[in-house]
């Protein structure tokens, strides 16, 4: 059973790595700063909304790009939304793929769009995993009697 100090260290190191690897950017720090004793679950709540919203959008994108005649305006609209919400929580890599994705929409490049869809699904899946791990580490720390840095 790990001590509080060790758990804390693990959490800090993990979070740092997420920033270093570009999964998260400064906007995530902004979110953390908005959390306090009166709203201790703010970050988890926003991130969960992001997960739900993203999954809906990815489904819509898959459907839209699967049509015999692709409505690029619709595709772009979904990507724009995904770009917005990923930007709001600091999911940098997801956001970056969305930028490229929008360019392909503008060009009506179906290949490019399909590639981006795959990429954005991957990046989303990665960041989801990372964030869930982060939250788990936080829980462990709290359960051991520590406080989240």
């Amino acid at each position: 059973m790990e001590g509080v100090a060790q758990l804390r260290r693990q959490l800090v190191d993990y979070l740092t790595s997420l920033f270093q690897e570009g999964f998260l950017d400064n906007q995530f720090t902004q979110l953390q700063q908005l959390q306090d004793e009166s709203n201790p679950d703010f970050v988890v709540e926003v991130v969960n909304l992001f997960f739900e919203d993203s999954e809906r959008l990815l489904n819509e994108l898959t459907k839209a790009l699967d049509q015999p005649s692709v409505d690029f305006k619709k595709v772009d609209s979904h990507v724009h939304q995904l770009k917005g919400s990923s930007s709001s929580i600091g999911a940098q890599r997801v956001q970056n793929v969305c930028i490229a994705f929008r360019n392909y929409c503008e060009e009506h490049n179906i290949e490019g769009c399909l590639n981006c869809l795959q990429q954005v699904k991957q990046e989303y899946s990665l960041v989801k995993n990372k964030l869930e791990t982060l939250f788990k580490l936080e829980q462990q720390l709290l359960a051991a009697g520590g406080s989240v840095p």
Partner: protein
Amino acid sequence: MSTAGLVSRRDCSHQLHVLAVDDSVVDRKFVERLLKISSCKVTAVESGIRALQFLGLDGEKKETAGFDGLKVNLIMTDYSMPGMNGFELLKKIKESSTLKEIPVVIMSSENILTRVDRCLEEGAEEFIVKPVKLSDVKRLKNILTKGDKGQNEEDPLLSLPLSSHDLASSSTSSSSPFKFLDHRSKRPRLQG
């Protein structure tokens, strides 16, 4: 906590009431938190239509002038929304004799100059590039509470003499607290 009527009206008159309009559930939650942490009362809605309904401008209800409890001091709206976008909402508000004095701020993830200019020309007080920062909200709040002269006459504390700056800049009859800002300074600051 709040009973309808005079007691709650007095309590609410200190707090700025902001109507936030955004189709993104993530952004609504985020902006709501920014505003609450800045001690503002928030109503967050998902569309321009809902915003107009809330403001009593859905064409059916009459403006109930005495109902200060719902008074909105600031509207912050996203630009890109399905159906009625932020610009169209702005227009509707500025065309309304009852609502046009309410300051409207546009939020957008896209810093497109023609878009910014169009919004400012239509009467938006500011154009904020997303993601919105706590400092943006603080700035808006400071401007509003300094310039907010006519809306708090019930409260003796808030009718203290204005600073000489306010007096100098309030020569126009409009009660908008933003009028003394240079048009150019409303342009979004560069990120960094």
